[in-house]
């Protein structure tokens, strides 16, 4: 299943945040969206998953999602959004219960996704007992449990420290290499973007418009820390973003 954004424009009251965004997200690819803060990148992600409606333009699904997909458009949030009163296994079972998956069938899925995110030993733990990195892995496990067609990741690593972020990026690359998934990955971190993105979409400052789409051809598995090619891409992205970021930083925060 592909996703197509067609002329998305949005304003909160008379405050324009996004202008005429058109973009294709191909199946099996990770598309990173980067841009200065306040450029509307998280808003764009909420449009893609149907949590908010744009003033103009359409988000289209092209082709049917795989038949076994329970929740084709699945988010991973920056602040994890785990229910603190449910255990790790309970948080995953939450998203299965509404699909009538319980008991043995649910246990099987939970065991599988916990194994894939290396959390098998923690299924009975409460979120308060977990570190930030573990919490985000639980959230990733929960997303995998509903077999999404497209993962919508809203700055998933931004609440984590630098070391944990590196480890989780490796985990994401591993997951993708074993079973390629489609993802839209919003971040303000260019290192994450060049590490995980097949395409990097650079948005301008508010109102967000697409400035450039950079394709990175190095396969995900071969992108090592400090790769010269990646560095070149990252420098290029930073040049695109620097002036936008500086101008965005000098603006008053609205709303």
């Amino acid at each position: 299943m592909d996703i197509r954004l067609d002329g998305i424009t949005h304003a909160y009251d008379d405050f324009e945040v996004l202008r005429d965004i058109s973009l294709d997200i191909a199946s099996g690819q990770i598309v990173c969206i980067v841009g200065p803060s306040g450029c509307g990148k998280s808003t764009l992600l909420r449009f893609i998953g149907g949590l908010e409606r744009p003033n103009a333009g359409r988000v289209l699904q092209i082709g049917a999602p795989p038949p076994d997909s329970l929740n084709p458009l699945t988010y991973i949030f920056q602040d994890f959004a785990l229910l603190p009163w449910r255990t790790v296994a309970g948080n995953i079972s939450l998203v299965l219960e509404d699909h009538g998956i319980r008991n043995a069938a649910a246990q099987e899925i939970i065991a599988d996704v916990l194994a894939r995110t290396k959390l098998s030993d923690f299924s009975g733990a409460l979120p308060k007992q977990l570190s930030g990195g573990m919490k985000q892995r639980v959230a990733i496990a929960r997303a995998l449990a509903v077999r999404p067609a497209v993962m919508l990741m809203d700055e998933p690593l931004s609440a984590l420290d630098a070391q944990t972020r590196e480890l989780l990026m490796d985990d994401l690359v591993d997951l993708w290499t074993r079973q390629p998934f489609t993802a839209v990955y919003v971040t303000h971190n260019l290192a994450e973007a060049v590490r995980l993105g097949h395409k990097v979409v650079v948005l301008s400052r508010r109102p967000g418009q697409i400035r450039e789409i950079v394709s990175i051809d190095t396969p995900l598995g071969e992108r090592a820390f400090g790769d010269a090619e990646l560095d070149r891409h990252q420098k290029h992205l930073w040049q695109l973003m620097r002036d936008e970021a500086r101008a965005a930083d000098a603006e008053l925060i609205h709303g």
Partner: protein
Amino acid sequence: MADTTTSQGAAHSDSRAVAFRGGGFAPRPRRWVGALVFVVLILVAEWGTRAGWISALTLPKPTDVLETFRELYESGMLFRHLGPSLSRLVVGAAIGASIGISVGVLIGLFSYIRSGLVPLVAAIFPIPKIALLPLFVIWFGIGEGSKYALIAFGTFTPTVVATYGAVDNVDRTLIRMGQSFGLSWWSIVRKIVLPGAMPGILSGLRISLAIAIILLVAAEMLGAEYGIGAYILEAGSLYDLERLFAGVVILSLLGVTVSTVIGAIERRLLNWRS
């Protein structure tokens, strides 16, 4: 490096330890301190009444109160009073709290219900429910009905206010998460909104149930033969201070019990809080 170790040993004349100015603002439970306060107060009262610097008209002797209490227990009258009171309290508070929680959740979830009912709740909250007692008697009769209604009405308003405040405070990102995974509306309410509001609802219940105990006495002012409230009022009109205090002690114990039970429920239901 060697330099620093030597200078550490040889204290300079103008060196001193940095004064500690952190700590505090983190009260922790200290066992038995609460009980100790009760014991000290009772001992002071006992000493005062025995020594005579507290006159018998001001305060009854704690040992006399205890004796009255023992008589009450041995004559079997304690449970004849306690039984009806407890059933009034349980039925009235259960009706009030359950309707209060339901209405509070509805106010927390729906714009029209919120706009319609919040002013109404604000209007009935400050009415002393005791003042409405005659009205309740007309509506629900002189029997148990009016007593249940009074207690239910009194617990209802604080429960509503606490509940919709608690629902307002449920983390919206969790609700968005539920929506993003395609959970049904009812699932979101049951599995996200209600558990998320539980801390606020329970702390509201602490207040509501204390109010229920206060109203219990008021409810028994009218046409109750048995009940702690009836017992206290009868003793009060006879200026029988020992019996009055024995009754008051029972109400206090009831309050402490309710608070302990809610504490236990909180520990059990809210062990997920960090």
